């Protein structure tokens, strides 16, 4: 469990430099803005996925959850002819997200059922509710408040050479705020330390006095809220609601989190590492053109990246275990 961030940071940097060399367009204001913009939704999902994995669980239902809540929120506001600002949509989304997250939380926290299977099940249920009960269709128009939020920008970056411009959406602030809050919570609250403790050794956590059932329950509630927010932002940024657009993202997000040094078994990893890993995948997916590689090769590269990245990670874990064992043996020998 050594610190992985320096390595992954170097890899990201090396990749950026490579793309820059190839295209001369990477470190331009508009490209960087585009990447940052593309990071918003995956980055938010990654925060949730990271926390769940650290706690020793896993969540594959967050895209379905986000799709359902964003669809429901948008449809409801459209039907009631809502014309106000972004705050009500946010509140509704968060509430729905908490509710659906609680669904996960009850089965995983209180019934101690395995997280992978539960979230597989709830993923199906959410999809079914959305497409079945709510009869979801693509919503080409969204409430004006959301539209405005999606089009408002923090700044506009211009590429001095090509003259292309890119907006930095206000939503990027949400990514920063959520990351910041998550960081504070994980580092400075016992709820957050509890997540690491549960992932490290759940029995010990119980014995130490953590209410692990409640802790896990609230974790999934929070993750549901974050996912829901991400779904809302996605809708705003796309200016429309496409019900199935986000489905299928879960595995790539999880891959990004793991690439960033989060152990899939739980207990180890850092928020910055998870963010870097997600950034790596986002950069690869978005820079195909700059590298002169037809976008058709995107999946091949992402797949190869995941395989190589997790392979290296696994190799490091193996080596670290051996080194620790050796160190103990030698320490004992010198004592004898």
């Amino acid at each position, binding site marked *: 469990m050594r610190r992985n961030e320096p390595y992954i940071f170097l890899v990201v940097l090396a990749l950026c430099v490579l793309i820059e060399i190839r295209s001369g367009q990477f470190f331009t204001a508009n490209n960087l803005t585009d990447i940052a913009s593309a990071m918003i939704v995956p980055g938010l999902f990654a925060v949730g996925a990271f926390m769940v994995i650290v706690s020793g669980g896993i969540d594959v239902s967050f895209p379905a959850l986000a799709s359902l809540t964003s669809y429901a929120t948008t449809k409801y506001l459209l039907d009631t002819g809502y014309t106000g600002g972004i705050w009500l949509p946010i509140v509704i989304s968060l509430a729905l997200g908490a509710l659906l997250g609680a669904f996960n939380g009850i089965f995983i926290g209180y019934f101690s059922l395995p997280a992978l299977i539960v979230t597989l099940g709830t993923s199906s249920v959410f999809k079914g509710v959305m497409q079945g009960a709510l009869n979801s269709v693509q919503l080409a128009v969204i409430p004006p408040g959301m539209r405005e939020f999606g089009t408002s920008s923090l700044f506009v970056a211009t590429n001095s050479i090509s003259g292309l411009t890119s907006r930095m959406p206000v939503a990027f602030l949400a990514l920063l705020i959520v990351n910041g809050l998550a960081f504070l919570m994980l580092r400075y609250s*016992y709820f957050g330390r509890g997540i690491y*403790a549960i992932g490290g050794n759940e029995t010990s956590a119980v014995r130490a006095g953590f209410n692990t059932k409640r802790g896990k329950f609230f974790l999934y509630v929070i993750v549901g809220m974050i996912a829901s927010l991400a779904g809302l932002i996605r809708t705003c940024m796309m200016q429309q609601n496409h019900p199935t657009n986000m489905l299928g993202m879960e595995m790539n997000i999880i891959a990004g989190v793991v690439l960033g040094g989060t152990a899939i078994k739980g207990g180890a990893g850092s928020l910055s590492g998870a963010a870097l890993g997600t950034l790596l995948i986002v950069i690869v997916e978005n820079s195909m053109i700059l590298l002169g590689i037809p976008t058709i090769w995107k999946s091949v590269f992402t797949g190869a990246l995941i395989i190589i990245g997790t392979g290296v990670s696994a190799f490091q874990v193996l080596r670290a275990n051996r080194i*620790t064992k050796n160190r103990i043996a030698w320490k004992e020998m010198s*004592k004898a």
Partner: protein
Amino acid sequence: MAKSLLRAVDIHKSFAGVHALKGVSLEIAAGEIHCLAGENGCGKSTLIKIISGVYQPDSGDIEFDGKILGKITPIDAIMLGIQVIYQDFSVFPNLTVMENLALNTELSQKRKIVSWKRIREIAQTAVKKINFDVDLDAQVSTLSVAQKQMVAISRALMSNARLIIMDEPTTALTKKEVQALFKIILQLKAQGISILFVSHKLNEVFEISERFTIFRNGELVQTGSTADLDSAKFTYYMTGREFGKKNFVPETIGEEPLLEVRDLTLDGYFENVSFTLRAGEIIGVTGLLDSGRSELALSLFGIRPASSGDILLKGKKVSIKNPQDAVRHKIGLVPEDRLSEGLFLPQSIQDNVIISEIDRLTTTLGLFDRAKREKEILRLVSDFAIATPDPRNACQTLSGGNQQRVVLAKWLACNLDVLVLSGPTVGVDIGSKHDIHAILHDLARNGMGIIIISDDLPEVIENCSRVIVLKGGRIVHEMDAQNANEQQILAHMM
């Protein structure tokens, strides 16, 4: 007599029809070191869980400090000053030492916000209590077993512990570390803290405890002062049987060497180890935890193939690079950690017992010869007296001693020439221990060559014809068991 701190009176507890505790009692005075002993399944773990609030007794009372405890939770017990240190030490390997030390205290104060400064202060106070020198920022996974135990003990002392219960604390410790632990226990006693430790090692009972209590089959068999105890009485109380001491004397030893090891080396662990084993012999290899003895076992079996040196079987050089090679050359290994390395506990006894010879029980293409397989299962279960109503039951339904028999049976089904056993009776109760040793004697008499690698000196002396002592990866002494005594061997080991 000092006032009693803890009194358990006539405790009954049943689980799903199994009467685990049948009216047992236990009494510990303040500042007393008390040993609770008994074979696996005798109920000692159950009683500890009742005392620490994990279970509630069906009937009977627990008195602590003169007051009768009603229904208590684990947190209540901790508040009262009852601390349990479990065998896994309940640490968080992924967190730092200081967090591990401070977590319980912080949580018991219902804190929500973390102050790292406060955590460090708490941790520093904790390690001072037993003068434990450790890097507070180190991740606990990097610590040795003894250090992890120290973390657990320091943590236990943080909450004004009055009674510390230790569950088999010396299992994974070196001799030096056991001595260090005992020193600390004495320090705690001097501070007026009572220690209840669970152990089945006779020498520990004698060395450290003042009073003892022995359970058998859920009942109290004997309690008293250790001054009145001796080896024979201890064995009798534990098992209800009497064992004559029968040192192993080899009957017929083969002329030719069965297994010969020349200058075997595993870089970083042991070097230039040479010895010879003949059919009918049982030799013992002993040494401290870091002497390389465990790794020698792994090398002979191909899990950690040797870096250099030769292994000869019946005079011919063989290459053992993986376990399949070892099995092919008729060498088997009964591993140190029976539970995680030797058995598939949730799987059936019958699968466990035939797994290593499984390829022999086939017709063609890997299809089972059902009749042959059934016959083999029945034979092994009866030959090894594995006590089970149905071999299709899961292995975890067996007692510890029976589980060890399954591991033995598994290997002996393979018609081995050489059997290496690493710590064969660690954690095994006295009764099964004797039975297992008897099986080994029989095997030797039938022509097998056996190597027992163990740090249980009485086991080595009584069961082997020759003893090899390893230190720092090298052989420092070799002697006949008949001329050996414990002090002598210990002197060579340290």
